[in-house]
């Protein structure tokens, strides 16, 4: 994938300061995370087997959950849809191996690494900030590490993935909305003093 000097991310510091560092929450872009949309039927044994063989772990079949293994993760997005994430530049290799293994099956792999960027939000106030604009019930009784959901934050569509109990969240957002969402987060965090 091209020369890294040719890369730009929607929230590149050069084009879009400031970083969001506050006393009880911080957020930062995780640019260029590898992302593949994997489509196939969870009712089909071969599809699940082949996916597990390539990924090294089973695709999550429980709605709105995430399976993680090392730097690979699979987020349940719908009954026949997952998003496989990986470290930057590994996606092409995974995609190719998936495609090869799935030949002859009704399945599809689409590279969307550039179709979304990731904002990581972490800190004791992270949940409060999300509650300013997200209709999901994020209470620890309802939404825990390993859960994901497609929903909205303010006026942007997002995929939300809770990483740990800090709490830390990854927000997946389309690059065209990233600056809007970043500005919204900076504004929402304003009541938590800057560190």
């Amino acid at each position: 994938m091209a020369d890294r000097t040719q890369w730009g991310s929607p929230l590149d510091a050069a084009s879009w300061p400031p970083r969001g560092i506050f006393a009880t929450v911080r957020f930062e872009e995780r640019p260029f995370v590898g992302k593949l949309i994997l489509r196939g039927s969870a009712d089909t044994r071969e599809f699940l087997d082949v996916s597990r063989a390539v990924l090294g772990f089973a695709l999550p079949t429980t709605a709105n959950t995430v399976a993680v293994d090392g730097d690979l993760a699979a987020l349940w997005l719908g009954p026949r849809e997952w998003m496989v994430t990986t470290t930057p530049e590994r996606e092409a290799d995974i995609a190719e191996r998936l495609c090869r293994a799935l030949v002859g099956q009704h399945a599809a792999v689409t590279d969307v690494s550039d179709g979304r960027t990731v904002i990581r939000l972490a800190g004791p106030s992270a949940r409060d900030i999300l509650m300013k604009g997200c209709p999901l019930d994020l209470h620890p009784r309802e939404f825990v590490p390993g859960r994901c959901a497609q929903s909205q934050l303010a006026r942007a569509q997002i995929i939300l993935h809770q990483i740990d109990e800090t709490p830390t969240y990854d927000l997946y957002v389309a690059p065209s909305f990233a600056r809007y969402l970043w500005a919204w987060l900076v504004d929402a965090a304003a009541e938590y003093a800057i560190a």
Partner: protein
Amino acid sequence: MSTQPFRLPRGGRIDRARPHRFIFNGRAYSGYAGDTLAAALLANGIHLVGRSFKYHRPRGIVTAGVEEPNALVQLGVGARSEPNLRATQCELYDGLIATSQNCWPSLRFDLGAINDRLARFLPAGFYYKTFMWPPSAWMQYEHAIRRMAGLGTAPEERDSDRYDKRLVHCDVLVVGAGPAGLAAALAAGRTGARVILADEQVEFGGSLLSGSAEIDGRPALDWVARATAELDWMAEAKLLRRATVFGYYDHNYLAIVERVADHLANPGEREPRQRLWKVRARQVVLATGAIERPLIFRDNDRPGIMLAGAARAYAHRYAAVPGRRTVVFTNNDSAYAAALDLIEAGGPVTTLIDIRAEPQGELADAVRAHGVEVIGGSAIVATSGRHRVKGVEVMRLTPDGTGVAGPVKYRDCDVVCMSGGWTPAVHLFSQSRGTLAYDSTHGCFVPSRAAQATHVAGICNGAWTLAECLRQGFTAGTAAARAAGFVEVAAAAAPPAPEPTATPPRILWAVPSDRAGTTSKHFVDFQNDVTVADIQLAAREGYRSVEHVKRYTTSGMGTDQGKLGNIPALGVLSDVLAADLPSLGTTTFRPPYTPVSFGALTGRDIDALADPIRVTPMHDWHVANGAIFEDVGQWKRPHFYPRAGETMRAAVDREVTAARTAVGILDASTLGKIDIQGPDAVTLLNRIYTNGWTTLEAARCRYGLMLKDDGMVIDDGVTTRLAPDHFHMTTTTGNAARVLGWLEEWVQTEWPDLRVYMASVTEQWAVATLSGPRARDVLAAAGTDLDLAPTAFPSQSMRQGAVAGMPARVFRVSFTGELSYEVNVPARCGGALWEALIAAGAPFGITPYGTEAMHVLRAEKGFIIVGQETDGTVTPLDLGLDRLVSKTKDFIGKRALLRPDTQRSDRKQLVGLLTEDPNEVLPEGAQIVVERRPEPPMPMIGHVTSSYFSPTLGRSIALALIVGGRARHGETLCVPLLGKTVKVEVAESCFYDRDGARANG
């Protein structure tokens, strides 16, 4: 500075160590922390706080809470000024500035008061009867009426405060923190359920704050303190004070406005002034209390006449006695308790008048024991005093209560405390669509059947004693938690409280007087100046429905929405119609319960956050290079790139000419893109598009039209076959999400057997379109491993390779009619690609062009834009695109194209228009007629859909939809505009390079 002459020497829940100065109508006063503005005014002996809406009568503080109709003030100055605030709810802070509303030039001398003398000319429905004719004049009337009515002044400046929102979920939301609500919250909270307890007051306790009740043999406020401490300690209980639950919507969705900083003289920078809570509750407990009713007697609106419960609250909670000589007028027991409390606090009560016959029992004895004269079976028939009540006249009621008789007793006073009984605050219950039942004993509606997961407790549920309120609270809280899946671990029993035996009230909606006539005013609705006579008039004029009577008389409108007057108004109406009160029903309770500021509803959705601004990976270059942007949906797209001193027209002409003669570059990243995979992908395309896809070879592109099943065009775009089972579809910018949804809808709902998957890749790819005779040179100069020779890379094909070192898909398709390459690279490379192409193109005169030049270029070629040439009523045949409509296969919309209506020859068809004057650019949307007549009507036969100046042709061009247009080629038609008529000739819709040699070369 006055000295608070009506402040009691001790008691009250005020902080005497923290005096606050404040200014009311330009004069300085003092009060204490813990006061409301109304309490501080009363402590200073101020009753006169405003003028009434219509008659401009002097008005005083009537209540001690949210239901206040009169004491509306404008608070603050400048940007933070806010009108229509209830002085009874404004917490006093140091430096508070308040002014009365609805009086001019001053509170004590109000010119509008002349209306009071002219009352006979201002009957119910007066505005409707007088100001509606001629209809055109209403706007002028309205302006003057609004100024006279004077509901405060909206600040001119921008609101300087911050407002915020919170979206929360809970197991049990308890509304109201009086005895029942606290009990419910305790019971629910002890189960571990997530509980939110919201109360509009500054501290919990509700009615207990204003009286001397006991719970478990100790002051009730001790119990409140213990309950609050326990709730504070619960990890899952959220306690909201100064928080009004104002709306109860579907599926247990409720809205709360929390006044975070309204009570602070200097609010913090970061904290919002108000916070809107949107709550989704599994279960709701409404413990919303009750509102005391006024008695509807003659001249019951003089300053100094207030609710008995309010007087009790001022004396007990704020240590401010409303006056020195108090007369009490009641129809029920609660005023006796209020009188006793007043006396105990130090406010002398001289006379108590009870509508009921000779009062007996403990309460009457207790009152008499304090030397109070108790007059039973009687009523106040008149009051006196202009700016403050001075005295009352009392007569005996006839046995049926419709008249008065006997001698008149005069009693001097400076305060009248009235009580007409209590109305449960069923507003939220009713908003949730719960049904109400009429309690004829107490003359009020109480909750009957809940419509949602709602529990009701306390006096709002007809629990008339403290003990019963507590019992209902614990029961409701336990039941709500259980219904949400939580079971109590410890038994939650209500503590004991006294349960005095009560004598039922005597309901007399309009209290008779010995003087009738139009000058006699028994006010039902203080804020809107609605009298018993107004309601009687409405009934005489034929109004029966309460909803109609409300709108005709304005009873129950305004900022208080009839919290005091609605039930008495209903009572009066039922009397005059001789109808059962419950058969009349109530007016509909709608949110909000109390007024909510626009700021709170808007929150942070302002300025740049009002709506997302979507930008492409090349956006910063466009900004740096002076682009003027156009909003396309939420996208910011470069409209044109003016050079210094250049007009829009000059810039667009230059950009168009560059694309025609050299090379232009367009940021086309916003184009919708859908990845379609699967063995049945081609079948799906065959059904979705009007043309055939089976024969399309790999790496070839084809233009397609999408119809709805009614035959009308909804989208168009180029789709490319990447591999036998793999397609790349493009859609118009505005339709990207809609088209993906459209495909999903058909595949999921109609054709689930199709083996095909779709994914949006709109933002995966950044797109730079090179267009112009030198496009190939620029691409070569940028460096590519693709063979660009026309034979190797023909028009309507796609190649994958490297461009300027970046992995690219290059589509040779043209929307300009020139040789064009749409270069797609992963979005992260979009900025670098753009800069590389600009640099490589410099020797060839590369010119960035915006959406306006793009429109001109495509219009010169007669290419349509969906949404501009189409509006949901246009078929492919209307557009002259028959060649794209397959005769051999079925597709969505095909059946409709066979209907006689879509086959008509006199449908509107797409044509080109050339104006007689080549410099005349028609306005888009202009109507077209065969000939201009001197006067309308003129049959309209079409309209202009696109219109530009074409620098390529050196003249204006337009596209239009015209009835039978294709048969009119060469005809001259007219476009009537303001002040002139433009003659146009009907032409081909393609104006330039009709055989397409330029794009295909």
